[in-house]
């Protein structure tokens, strides 16, 4: 008994983590290998099929969505803070790539291990890895700037303020064409092209999609690693404690503001890195892509997959991102050609997500693949609940004070 009680965590979670990690790695490598070695020599029908259903651009996008959903999961799933403006961090990261990897600022000519297009040396051209780091740091700082005044708010108000920030930042980008005569964001035209990724002497442009996919998959993998490790440590415990009972957490010596800010900063970093990655995937930054709907999609990924559980969020992000960028179009085409109608299925995506979320809330609130502990609370009526047998008379005073 003594040995087992000293283990870091219940053995089954370690095991299932290993299984899932191997599964993720296998799928990623399989996609890479198929596209790198098989598709180029495959018959035309196979090529068309893969292009239509599992295009590499959509696969890369899925990886980036996994990265960002896991970032939001730290804020929403771990620390229990509702953030409705996550797109702000995605936008900020995207613009860091736009500023530091393109000809946007053509009054300067800076090249630091960058990859300017042939014959166009103007602008700032930094190395992709450096931009990833800078994008992450930049958004982390913004996470703290946005978080510091808002995280003192109670949950509903916090959600509203984050909603506001999610609107403000993209709007600044839309209107940032002429800030006192300085063209910061190139307005609605966006910044393009963003430089091709160049790593270790190899260039990864629009035709090296398989390699680019692998880069994005590594970023997603890194975030999975971060998420799992953080949850098991000092910070992760403090986040969960805040999610469970903020007041009790502070009474146990957990500094609420600092711990919440840490979750915000880590979440924002993932959003920023995702933004940089996405800019290199599509080769540009476009202000109108950073709309409120993105915040909701990413939040849906977290909720749908199973709040707090890394693997659940991964499944949720994969499913939703794929349905959004490929599934709806393809199934729509099939249905249209079978019925002879001409319905624009992708335009129904929010109807479908909305219905899906409502159904989830009605029948499976804990998500597809919930964290064990979340499954517990969602089905609490099935467990004998001893904690209810308490005396709540003087608790009223405590709550009263919280709102003051």
């Amino acid at each position, binding site marked *: *008994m003594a040995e087992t*009680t*000293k*283990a*870091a*965590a*219940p053995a089954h979670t370690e095991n299932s983590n290993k299984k899932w990690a191997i599964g993720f790695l296998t799928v990623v490598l399989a996609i890479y290998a198929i596209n790198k070695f098989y598709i180029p020599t495959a018959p035309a029908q196979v090529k068309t099929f893969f292009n239509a259903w599992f295009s590499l651009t959509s696969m890369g996008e899925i990886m980036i969505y996994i990265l960002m959903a896991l970032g939001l999961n730290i804020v929403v799933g771990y620390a229990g803070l509702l953030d409705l403006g996550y797109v702000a961090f995605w936008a900020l990261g995207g613009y860091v790539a736009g500023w530091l990897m393109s000809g946007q600022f053509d009054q300067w000519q800076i090249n630091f291990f960058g990859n300017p297009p042939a014959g166009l040396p103007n602008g700032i051209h930094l190395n992709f890895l450096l931009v990833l780091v800078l994008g992450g740091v930049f958004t982390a700082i913004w996470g703290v700037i946005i978080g510091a005044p808002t995280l003192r708010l109670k949950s509903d108000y916090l959600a509203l303020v984050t909603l506001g920030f999610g609107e403000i930042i993209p709007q600044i980008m839309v209107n940032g064409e002429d800030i006192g005569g300085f063209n910061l964001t190139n307005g609605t035209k966006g910044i393009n092209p963003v430089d091709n990724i160049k790593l270790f002497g190899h260039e990864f442009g629009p035709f090296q999609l398989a390699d680019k996919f692998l880069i994005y998959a590594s970023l997603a993998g890194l975030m999975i*690693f*971060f998420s799992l*490790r*953080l949850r*098991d*440590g*000092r*910070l*992760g*415990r*403090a986040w*969960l*404690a805040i999610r*469970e*009972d903020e*007041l*009790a*957490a*502070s*009474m*146990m*010596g*957990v*500094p*609420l503001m600092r711990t919440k800010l*840490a979750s915000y900063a*880590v979440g924002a970093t993932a959003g920023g890195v995702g933004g940089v990655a996405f800019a290199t995937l599509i080769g540009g930054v476009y202000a109108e892509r950073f709309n409120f709907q993105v915040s909701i999609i990413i939040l849906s990924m977290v909720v749908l997959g199973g709040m707090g559980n890394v693997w659940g969020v991964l499944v949720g992000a994969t499913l939703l991102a794929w349905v959004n960028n490929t599934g709806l179009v393809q199934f729509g085409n099939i249905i249209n050609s079978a019925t002879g109608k001409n319905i624009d299925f992708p335009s129904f995506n929010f109807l479908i997500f909305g219905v899906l979320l409502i159904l989830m809330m009605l029948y499976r609130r804990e998500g597809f693949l919930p964290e064990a*502990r*979340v499954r*517990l*609370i969602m089905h*609490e009526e099935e*467990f004998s*609940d*001893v*904690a209810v*047998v*308490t*005396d*709540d*008379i*003087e*608790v009223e*005073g*405590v709550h*009263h*004070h919280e709102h003051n």
Partner: protein
Amino acid sequence: MSTTNNPVLDAQNISVVFGGLVAVNDVSFTIPEGSIVSLIGPNGAGKTTFFNVLTGLYQPTSGDVFFDGDNITGRAPHKISSGGLARTFQNIRLFGMMTAQENVMVAMHSKMKAGVWATTFRTKKQKREEAEAREFAQELLDFVGIGKTTHEYARNLSYGDQRRLEVARALALRPKVVLLDEPTAGMNPNESAAFVEFVRRLRTERGVSVLLIEHDMSVVMQVSERITVLDQGQKIAEGSPSEIKNNPRVIEAYLGKSGSEASQNVN
């Protein structure tokens, strides 16, 4: 006697006013180092409010709280608790969906150092820190007698075990003083009797001073060295158990005026 020791906690002239309601009225109160003291009073007397002032949850309208020589009035709750003033809750407030071990380890947060990087890359220091924390958590779980529940979710524990886990969690702060808010609520007489012994062990084996809010008079009388009685926000009596037992104002507060006459007639 221990009552002559320096006070580890010293609350001076505390008043708390909610709107027009005076919940606590000019109460002074000390916990001598190494002592076991109790705060009693009828429902609504302001005991929990007073508790919440001590732990920083409420700002007193007037008055000061000194802990270990420092004025902690108005200090943030997490600073007061990590400074060594730990508490449990009248209505159990565990982190239900965390394991018993995790619950205890949360309270070690302020004493641990690992940040994002150290945790992610499991540096040697972080690993040692985690291992020590787990060991200490196990020690505390063993101490309160639930050493086999390490990996069980707190909400799945029995009511009594949840109460014990709350104490273990409070002890993880390495406190000088532990405030127990109605710890025997819901216990049967046998459990309450065992609890008296447990509170004494808290002092002898963990070296903490204990402040109890308690309704169970047999527990209070057995375990306390000093008892303070609150009624309607005011301190109406203070003294040893035998003094309190025979104090007419206390009897009046609990039984009403006629009750106090009746009890005198019986005597």
